[in-house]
């Protein structure tokens, strides 16, 4: 009786210990997101949400050129970042997996080093390289290639390079873990059967490492489309992306319904990326 009672008490304690954190997440994560979803369907008037339901927020996002361009620019930047990350990360990952150098550990650490520096520090480096009196302009002027400094900032491609630089380690990690999983005897078998090095790489190694490539691309893409700091530092009013636009709408203009609609577009994109990741059997291990 008392033992059953004690067990019941312990059970209640267990339920409480799990219910507490669960409730915390429901109140401060699930509920706010539900509000966000509902706000995206509400009319915002005089900086207040009203009870009138509407689809106008989404209509505005996808028809007004300014907003539509912001969305398209965000995805183009995200796609380019993913592509650059994969293209640069692949040779690096391949080298790191195959090298027999005694500096291997150090080289791996160095390739992941950017993760240790804040994204702001890394982006500021690009700001210094590309600004009016930056490395590129001063170098070109010293070589007499140009007379007047080039206006390299703000620009979409500066944002793209900055983000690719910041997200490269994720690509290296996912591709390395994919390459590590390939059985080396498969390559030996292909070469034993007469395939040359290039042929072996193209028809054995590359296809087998595809999950890492797809995973690296999708991971970089998904982080890039919701990044704020890099577009804020390297971009300007002519290169707004969704994140900077959301900040304008939520904090400066207090247009919550439009800001929320942008937020929902980002959430839907993230879920679509998740589905694509699962469908492609891609690696998500870098997280």
């Amino acid at each position, binding site marked *: 009786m008392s033992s059953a009672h004690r067990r019941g008490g312990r059970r209640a304690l267990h339920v409480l*210990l*799990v219910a*507490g*954190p*669960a409730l915390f*997440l*429901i109140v*401060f*994560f*699930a*509920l*706010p*997101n539900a*509000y*966000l979803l509902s*706000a995206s369907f509400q009319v915002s008037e005089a900086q207040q*949400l009203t009870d009138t339901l509407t689809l106008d927020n989404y209509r505005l996002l996808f028809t007004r050129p300014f907003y539509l361009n912001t969305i398209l620019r965000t995805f183009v930047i995200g796609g380019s970042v993913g592509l650059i990350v994969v293209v*640069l990360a692949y*040779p*690096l990952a*391949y*080298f790191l997996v195959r090298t027999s150098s005694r500096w291997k550990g150090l080289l791996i650490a*160095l*390739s992941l*080093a*950017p993760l240790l*520096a*804040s*994204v*702001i*520090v*890394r982006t*500021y*480096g690009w*700001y*210094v*390289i590309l*600004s009016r*009196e930056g*490395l590129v302009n*001063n170098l070109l002027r010293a070589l007499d290639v140009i007379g007047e400094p080039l206006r390299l900032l*703000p620009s979409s491609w500066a944002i793209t390079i900055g983000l690719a*630089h910041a997200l*490269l380690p994720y690509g290296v990690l996912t591709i390395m873990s994919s390459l590590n999983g390939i059985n080396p005897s498969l390559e030996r078998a292909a070469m034993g059967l007469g395939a040359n*090095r*290039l042929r072996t790489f193209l028809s054995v190694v590359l296809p087998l490492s595809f999950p890492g490539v797809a995973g690296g691309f999708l991971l970089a893409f*998904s982080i890039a489309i*919701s990044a*704020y*700091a890099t577009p*804020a530092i390297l971009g*300007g009013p*002519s290169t707004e992306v969704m*994140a900077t636009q959301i900040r304008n709408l*939520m904090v400066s203009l207090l247009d919550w319904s439009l800001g*929320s609609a942008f*937020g929902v577009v*980002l959430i839907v994109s*993230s*879920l679509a990326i998740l589905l694509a990741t699962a469908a492609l059997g891609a690696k998500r291990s870098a997280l």
Partner: protein
Amino acid sequence: MTRALSWRHGPWTALKLGVALIYAFIVGPILITAIVSFNAVNRSQFPPQGFSLRWWGEAFTPQWLGPLAFSLELSAVTALISTALGLPLAFALARHEFPGRGALAALTMSPLILPTLVTGIALLQFLQIAGFGALLGFWALLIGHVVICLPFSVRTVAISLKAMPPAVEQAALNLGATPATVLREITIPLCKAGIFAGAVFAFIHSFSDVNLSLFVARPGQRPVTVTILSFLEYVGDFVFGDHSRD
């Protein structure tokens, strides 16, 4: 051996060259930031003009030490709370079957899947609508950071719980230990590494966050990342001020 060398030679050397360039790409901007910090003038200029430690002196004034201390405190408390909340969740998810387990796992992990920026605006909006706008600043930051750090705490502890051989705990129980003793003497010490790793992850994730903090901070209660970012945004406007930025 010689054959191995010969087919390796060409492509492998080319690869090494490419890899060296990629390393330059990785390290360059970070080095440049470090070098510019010794610049003598108030300009984002490269190569720097002269050498000076004045910016380092400036960094150690209350204007910057304040936000830094604020960030350290916020991240420490975040790591502590997220570990405390994550522990029972990890136990439940890794060890038990119960109705709603899948939903709980999804709820716990989704802050990792949804963009942090959106979690930030959702929290901002929710606190404003629910009339808790006064929480913006430290408390809202703490709540938001715990939400986004919880997945890390839960995952690292769950991994070490799964890696632990169940026989160890069974043996202790058979030898007469009470479940509380087993937890205290066996289970917790054995997944200490996981708990510690989770807390470290949470600390780093909280300390480096920009996307959530941006929305729920308030002047005077801002983490160092947001402080630096708004400073840089201001400097950007300053530098391009006379050229109109678009």
